């Protein structure tokens, strides 16, 4: 029976926590394995710029304490984990008084909105196109023009993004080249703001959707051909069901299952890709700030954003895991096989 059992839920939650813990530990470990330390590097940079700074050794010590980089590593690690649990990601090294959580808080909603809309559109459109391409009852001329929509699949999305920017933003000036909404627009639930957000978000979303939906379409076409050969499809036709019902409830409904699994497996890549897209379009989301943090060696911000990405992807996978047995009754929650 497909009822969500507590055991299944707890197991999945455990996996979620484990993923995040491993991620957090890697984030903690990797910078410490590298030679030198960020504080010294930063103070040295300041010295270069200012020529001379008094008591630089004291300053380094003070800042070390401030950023939790002093003391033996296991104390550091414990403090680090505790601060993660408290969602206290510390201060930006490069823009000191700014808190990492504030930077993430400002950029996360944009990334989340853009990536989820792009993913839903790409997944939905790609699967529908793929399904129609495989459906024999679709008129041949439609089936033949559908692949045209997949032309851009073979182009890397960042190249497509650059193409879009150079023509639609710089050359013809139809769309803005950067930002998430226009200057002089009051953020809030007003039409001007919403339109401005859509106007700014369209190109980044489009570059993700157009270049990634082919992946879903090709997978879906294959699945749909396989499904169409199943005995239950023959019986569905024998029952005299309307073609539309067979398409959605027998064809797509069954072909979709491996696609959802593929989506869960690809979420990491989807998130990674969107970071680059943000960069190209100057879209102030996590990816944009991550890039800024990398070029200014702002370790705490880098750590915070990477941690956020791990939490985000793990959570999305958790949600798909919990939903999956609902769309495939053969996977039972109680046995915990997903």
């Amino acid at each position, binding site marked *: 029976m497909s009822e969500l059992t507590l055991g299944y839920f707890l197991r999945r939650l455990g996996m979620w926590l484990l993923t995040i813990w491993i991620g957090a530990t890697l984030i903690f470990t990797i910078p410490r394995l590298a030679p030198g330390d960020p504080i010294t590097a930063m103070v040295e940079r300041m010295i270069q710029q200012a020529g001379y700074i008094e008591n630089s050794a004291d300053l380094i010590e003070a800042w070390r304490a401030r950023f939790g980089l002093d003391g033996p590593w296991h104390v550091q690690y414990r403090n680090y984990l505790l601060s993660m649990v408290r969602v206290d990601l510390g201060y930006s090294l490069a823009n000191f008084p700014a808190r990492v959580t504030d930077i993430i808080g400002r950029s996360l909603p944009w990334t989340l909105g853009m990536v989820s809309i792009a993913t839903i559109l790409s997944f939905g459109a790609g699967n529908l196109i793929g399904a129609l391409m495989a459906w024999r009852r679709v008129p041949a001329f439609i089936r033949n023009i559908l692949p045209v929509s997949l032309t851009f699949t073979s182009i890397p999305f960042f190249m497509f993004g650059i193409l879009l920017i150079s023509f639609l933003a710089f050359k013809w000036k139809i769309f803005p080249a950067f930002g998430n909404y226009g200057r002089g627009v009051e953020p809030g639930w007003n039409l001007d703001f919403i339109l401005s957000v859509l106007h700014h978000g369209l190109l980044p979303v489009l570059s993700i959707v157009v270049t990634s939906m082919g992946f879903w379409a090709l997978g879906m076409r294959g699945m749909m051909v396989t499904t169409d050969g199943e005995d239950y499809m*023959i*019986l569905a*036709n024998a*029952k*005299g069901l309307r073609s539309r019902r067979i398409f959605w409830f*027998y064809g797509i409904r069954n072909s979709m299952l491996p696609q959802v699994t593929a989506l869960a497996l690809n979420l990491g890549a989807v998130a990674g890709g969107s970071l680059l897209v943000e960069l190209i379009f100057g879209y102030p989301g996590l990816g944009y700030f991550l890039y800024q943090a990398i070029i200014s060696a702002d370790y705490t911000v880098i750590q915070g954003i990477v941690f956020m990405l791990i939490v985000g992807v793990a959570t999305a996978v958790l949600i798909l895991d919990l939903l999956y047995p609902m769309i495939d*009754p053969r996977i039972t929650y109680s046995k915990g096989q997903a």
Partner: protein
Amino acid sequence: MTAATTIDAMDTVMVDSGPSEQDAVLDIRNLQVFYATPSGDVRAVDNVSFKVQRGEIIGLVGESGCGKTTTAMAILRLVQPPGRIAGGEINLDSVNLADLEGDDLRETRWTKLSLIPQGAMNSLNPVMRISSQIKDTIRTHEGRISNRELKERILQLLQLVGLPSRVYDMYPHELSGGMKQRACIAMAIALDPVLVIADEPTSALDVVVQRVVGETLLDVKERLGVSMIVIGHDMGLMAQLVDRLAVMYAGRIVEFAPVESIFNEQLHPYTQLLIESIPSIKEKKPLKLTEGLTHDLRTHMQGCIFQLRCPHVMDICREENPPMRALRSRHETACHLYDDDGIRLH
């Protein structure tokens, strides 16, 4: 309501010794179904003609690959490419199904003829509850019906095939093979069709379950008086279930007779070998059929299709295709071994 009328209809059939022309529910004439292959058409069903009377169960037997499923699919108009119906008529209640297209065809399906599929294991949609799969069929053909009425009707159907009412909310993977097959039977009779085609309804099941499913079919036949075509090689099931038996070989029907008559006396040499090789009918005997001598279905054979394997083959067999002739009362055979009076020549 329909039960009463169909039982009446059955009585008349039983009283009637010889079925009359008008009673034919299904009248197939010169049906040809070919599969296109790179090396030419496979003549999977070649000039098949037979009739099914109202309330009658026809058994269709023959070795695997002789065209039984293809015949069934042609009647349902479900022959998949590269197959095609190359000729003939499929008259169901005086409507030639071979001429129907689009919504006319779709609306005829299941309301007039339904299918109990060969692979009951995979014939139910794995992501839909049993009730939903019966519901969508009823709703599609009968329009809006209140949920309560629909549920009652489905529970009745489940009961009729001996399934507990908890099956209503179950998914296919929660049912055993026999239960799935009975769910398919329930679905097949949901709209009270005139003809049900069952393609090897028991072949994928273990022996005990085979008998249960066989009894379910028999029960359904007795209660509803529906006509059936039952495909299979289980002669035990055939003896238990069917009124008349059609023996098919290489895309043709070679013998067609009441089941007692055929078990008494097999006129066609192929039928003789077929019956002799069944351990449950007579004592255990090795299969007498010589393997590997079947003719290539892609070439149109001059003369009798069984000549390559027939122990009694004569010169005429290689020249003339033997026509179906009634050699005994209602017992038809296509073989040169008999004269017009049914006397064996040698």
